[in-house]
């Protein structure tokens, strides 16, 4: 063990001195995952219209199905002979040009569910469409291979299913100072110090105590570590920009957290899609480019992988309200410095072969992407987290 790691781990141990056993019991501490690699997960919530994001601009079927909504050929950023970026993705195009982006088309799962909530659960828990899991894939990763609840941080006021494990959850925080200040309250310290572990099994009450103790041990660490770095970059002034800024501060202050989860909402464009999606894509790509610059400046981009997904794509055919209804397969973006396969990972969506709802059919299971990231990036056993074996891809 390196001296630095040793000091880190022993100081961690001492901060957990009074914590009951379940906090200390991280199953596979010996099989720790890669020390430096970080994963940032971005969900475009609501179901982003992938076809108007990466546009098949030579495909007649696309134009026929979307007389009002299709993006005209001269209004997009062409990148290949048949695909172009939405005009508001100029910043993403820069990322693409530098070879930092891999776009995986046609990602989904068998028997796609068209409910936001159900499909979000499926993506977040990595279940089949007929399975119901109550833990998220990152939650399970934290539990099995993380060091502490803060191994996974969601940049929000409350925690999503993706971050929940069986016994240990990730941490939700938008502002580490608020969380830290709340846990510092002497009264709470006393209540926590009092706990002897023997009485913590009660159903909901045990859950509350456990959460309180987790909060206490993580809040101090996150706050005191992350305050050592303040980003000087100008992020766009919106919630997504702020979340990415905080994420960069966490990463660049060398917080030991491994996975960050950020959700950006508003993509459920049943009506008047054009303006709304344009605005959202602009926010997304602008913020993302600043984020990458920030990481590069601090030499942390090489150790960071960014995964962007949406719970489903949208129907090929537009609806009557200038929008699109819930669809199925969609594109996923992988961003990183040393990608094995840059640009487009696979072929464009096939608009000739749709399912009976008129939606794109997936050719890559989203869990293949998770499995690849777990094994090749976070360097852990993917099967123990996904409960099944999925074919690995070679984008990293």
């Amino acid at each position: 063990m390196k001296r630095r790691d040793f000091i880190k781990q022993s100081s961690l141990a001492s901060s957990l001195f009074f914590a009951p056993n379940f906090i200390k019991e991280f199953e596979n501490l010996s099989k720790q995952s890669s020390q430096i690699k970080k994963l940032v997960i971005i969900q475009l919530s609501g179901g982003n219209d992938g076809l108007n994001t990466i546009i098949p601009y030579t495909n007649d079927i696309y134009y026929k199905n979307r007389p009002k909504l299709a993006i005209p050929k001269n209004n997009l950023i062409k990148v290949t002979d048949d695909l172009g970026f939405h005009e508001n993705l100029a910043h993403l195009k820069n990322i693409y040009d530098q070879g930092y982006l891999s776009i995986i088309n046609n990602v989904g799962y068998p028997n796609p569910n068209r409910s936001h909530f159900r499909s979000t659960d499926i993506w977040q828990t990595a279940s089949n469409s007929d399975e119901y899991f109550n833990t998220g894939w990152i939650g399970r990763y934290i539990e099995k291979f993380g060091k502490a609840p803060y191994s996974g941080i969601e940049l929000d006021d409350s925690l999503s299913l993706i971050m929940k494990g069986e016994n240990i959850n990730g941490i939700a925080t938008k502002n580490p100072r608020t969380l830290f200040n709340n846990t510092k309250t002497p009264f709470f310290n006393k209540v926590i110090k009092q706990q002897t572990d023997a009485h913590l099994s009660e159903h909901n009450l045990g859950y509350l105590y456990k959460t309180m103790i987790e909060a206490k041990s993580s809040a101090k660490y996150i706050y005191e570590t992350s305050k050592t770095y303040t980003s000087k970059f100008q992020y766009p002034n919106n919630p997504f920009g702020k979340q990415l800024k905080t994420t960069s501060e966490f990463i660049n202050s060398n917080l030991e957290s491994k996975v960050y989860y950020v959700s950006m909402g508003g993509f459920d464009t049943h009506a008047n899609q054009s303006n709304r999606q344009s605005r959202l894509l602009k926010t997304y790509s602008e913020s993302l480019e600043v984020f990458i610059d920030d990481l590069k400046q601090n030499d942390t981009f090489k150790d960071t992988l960014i995964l962007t997904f949406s719970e489903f794509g949208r129907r090929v055919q537009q609806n009557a309200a200038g929008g699109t209804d819930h669809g199925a397969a969609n594109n996923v973006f992988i961003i990183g410095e040393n990608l094995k396969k840059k640009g487009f990972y696979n072929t464009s969506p096939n608009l000739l072969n749709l399912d009976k709802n008129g939606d794109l059919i997936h050719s890559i299971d989203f869990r293949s992407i998770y499995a690849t990231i777990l094994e090749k990036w976070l360097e852990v056993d993917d099967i123990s987290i996904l409960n099944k074996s999925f074919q690995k891809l070679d984008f990293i």
Partner: protein
Amino acid sequence: MNKRQIIHLFWRANFGLNIEELSKLELKSKSEILSELFLDSSENTDLKLDLNGLSEIENKSNKELKEKFTQAEINRLKKIGQKKVRELNYAWINRLKEPNNKLREKMALFWANVFVCRDNNQIFHIQQYNNILRKHALGDFRAFVKAIAKEPSMSKYLNNRQNIKQKPNENFARELMELFTLGIGNYSEQDIKEAARAFTGWSFDEKGNFKLRKNQHDFGLKTFLGKTGYFDGEDIIDIILEQRQCAKFICTKIYTYFINPIIDEKRLEEITEVFFKDYDISNLMKYIFSSNWFYNEENIGVKIKSPIELLIGIQKIVPVKFNKKKQFTYLQKMMGQTLLYPENVSGWKGGRNWIDSNTLMFRMKLASLILNDAIINLEEKGEFEASFDAYYKKLKKKNKFIKTTKNWELFQSKYKNLKPKELTDLLIVSKINKDTEDFLNNLEKKSNKDFCVQLMSIPEYQLC
């Protein structure tokens, strides 16, 4: 009923109760208590803001507005409307604190999270929607579903207004079944398409009344859940209610909200049977609250309070006025439940989903934040806590506390002479963790005011 059972009933049927209410109820029999509870909620009173300043836009279509006003004026009026929605949030929460219509208001809050809807811009519509929840809260579920399907706010929220014969929009039909009545997996994608056709042309006029746009409605034959006919939206709702699954779906929500987050399948079947008979919400609730098993120890103090339950519960004991309404919104937001602003149509998941490290620490801090300038006194017998003084000395300088006016005088007059055990039993319904109980016993109890804040700051107070 013993004290504990009364407190249990009123936590589920309302937001807990204060010492005066409890002493009055203690003298009564179970049937007296229950008939009073239902009698108290038999009349509905609409919640209405003073919207006089907006009368010039009431009942006006967008087209009319554009003829009458410039774009700048329309934007200004829109801003006022949005402000009024925030005022409605405040008025609603104040309504929840009122001593009458207890059960109706609690039920309306429950239904707001079943028939989830959001409309930030049109105060007239959202106020009307809010009152529909109140009106039907204890009524006929069938009439209730039909009413919400016709509401302008719902029509806009789930795009039913854009659902027309030429191009059906499935959004409302899907959520009607998935979230409002049947639950996922109890219908096919084809059923959604057919139901969407039946709701085509459903819209509203400028007064907010339901209107069928006949030329947009699909009058054709539909096959829905195995039945074929020339169905319209109301027929679809009737067919949905013919499914026992619909009664079960709603009863499951009722069970986890009013009885226990862990479902006892046998009891669920029992109440489903009751509800499926006539879909009478009042009958269902009477059945539940009258049953002996509702008062079983396993059902008491096991539910995680929603942020609103927490916020109102505190104020039942110590009346509080928020001097800055913005701060009041902030509190709701921090805990993840801002009334009238649900994040999405599936509503708040509730239960353990209210809790993570961030929200829990905030919730445990809440009582001290609004009652005691964020201070939770801490003095143990025979020990002087130096770090405690130092902590608050530092804090006082920099913290901007939530600005409230709290009526401690009232508290003092009613609770001053309560023994620690009596105050504990009133405030904490959950079992108390043994270690925490020892800690509480060891606290120097200087005043019931301090002890009240302390009790409201332990994890057990998060349960009801």
